[in-house]
């Protein structure tokens, strides 16, 4: 795996970096997003993607994944298999389901 392209990466490619160096968000014009999108559309994926992707090994505990997601503010973690290739992707929602399931089981257990 050489990189990862997320919606966030594409939005960042459209949003000019100078805008965030100062508080310039109030100073835009009609059609600015479209203008910037046209320019960004000509760029290669490799210029926009995140190169230093945070990954987890297949056997990583779920808590470690939560730690990565919170600390690095990422919503997905590619899972690397034993052969060194991407075996799957763990999404924030996957973790969320696991967490809610545990919460509900716990509550159900309490009522019994």
């Amino acid at each position: 795996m050489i990189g990862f392209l997320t919606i966030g990466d594409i939005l960042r490619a459209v949003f000019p970096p100078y805008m965030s160096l100062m508080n310039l968000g109030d100073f835009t014009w009609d059609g600015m997003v479209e203008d910037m999108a046209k320019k960004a559309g000509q760029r290669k994926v490799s210029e926009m993607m995140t190169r230093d992707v945070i990954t987890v090994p297949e056997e990583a505990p779920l808590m470690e994944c939560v730690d990565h997601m919170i600390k690095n503010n990422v919503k997905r973690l590619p899972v690397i298999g034993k052969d060194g290739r991407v075996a799957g992707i763990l999404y924030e929602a996957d973790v969320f389901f696991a967490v809610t399931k545990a919460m509900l089981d716990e509550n159900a257990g309490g009522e019994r």
Partner: protein
Amino acid sequence: MTHGAAAATQPFVMDTAFWTATTIFLLAYAVIVSEKIHKAIVAVFGAGLMLVLKILEQHEAFHAEEFGIDWNVIFLLISMMVIINLMRPTGVFEYIAIKSAKWGRGEPFRILAIFAIVTAVLSAFLDNVTTVLLIVPVTILIADALEVDALPYLISCALASNIGGTATLIGDPPNIMIASKAQLNFMDFVYHLTPVIILTMVFYIFSIKLIWGRKLKTKDALKERIMTMNENEAIKDPVMLKKSLAVLAMVLTGFVFHGMLHFQPATVALFGAGLLLLLSKTNEPHHILAEVEWPTIFFFMGLFIIIGGVVKVGLIKWMSVKVLEITQGNLFATSMVVMWFSAFASAFIDNIPYVATMNPLIVDMAKQLWPELSGVQLLQHVDLMPLWWSLALGACLGGNGTAIGASANVIVVGMSEKLGRRISFAKFMLYGMPLMVMTVVISTIYVWLRYYVLKI
């Protein structure tokens, strides 16, 4: 080592201490120029060596006026940085920039000229790096809105900032250092440097009109993009803005009168910074203070100690003798040599270490010319004054020569690269060098006319 309080520099002998100090000095400068190691680290390590090898005693480095850290410079820089850091979040700088662009009515060249003037004026009161950090992002936004090449705006921002910074005591670090060394006050700079800088700016605006005036064209529909921006939206914290403007006004008034009131500029700035910190009611001064440019501050401190070492062993005095030999004691010739040598030296090396070296050299020169004088009478001898002004003009304006000549240029080029508008070394020099030579020619005529012909 010398004994007795009266011993200023050691009697001149090329002993081990002399060669040790000279080696540290030359090596440190060579590594700073090579940019292999960050200059702040080089300066601090070099200073450490000067102390460990007993070239300087710690007491001299920390407390001696002649060999040690110039705390006036350090606290003036820190205090101004704190004031600006507190002002930034209010949105006042975004307001000024957008307002200027609208004042240019969306005309690309008019905006270029107005930005040059605004940058120069801001640089006269803030440090140049801060100014370009504030102006560059807006500059690119405006160029994008008008669909014109951002290059003229970016290069002009760096050049105008270096010209404007020359105008006042607080505009550029060389001036702060010169003022502290020669005990000059804010109004001295206004009286002697501001007029020539205003004149220089007029010539500068005409020059950029010739260079870029015709190339910058846009459509009326695009001008509307600028005119519909509402600068009032930039103001995020009107209460803090009022407080900062009041404190800034007080500090500037303090600078104007500091000579009369017998305050050092650092006292004025430190009081302002303390007051604004208090008024900001922040309980978290941590991030405001952390945003001070500490690498620059440590660079200065280290440099002062390294220079202190070579002053003490007599290297600087020896150099001043040589300079006087070359110019045969003719002070007009000396000031011309100082100005042009400073200009070309500053175009390639950082003007801060350069001026840090030149300052004691000029003092040593004065001591040889008027051995009977001391204190202010020596430092502000009527025949010595043109030398200080030549040094300030040469060192500050010389920075415009190349992309590495001044920290403002380095920042503009660095930011431009990050923002996808690369400016090559050659490209910068193509515009910077001729404009630098023009500004130094104007200064040469000014110094010659004012101090050697009209003598006013």
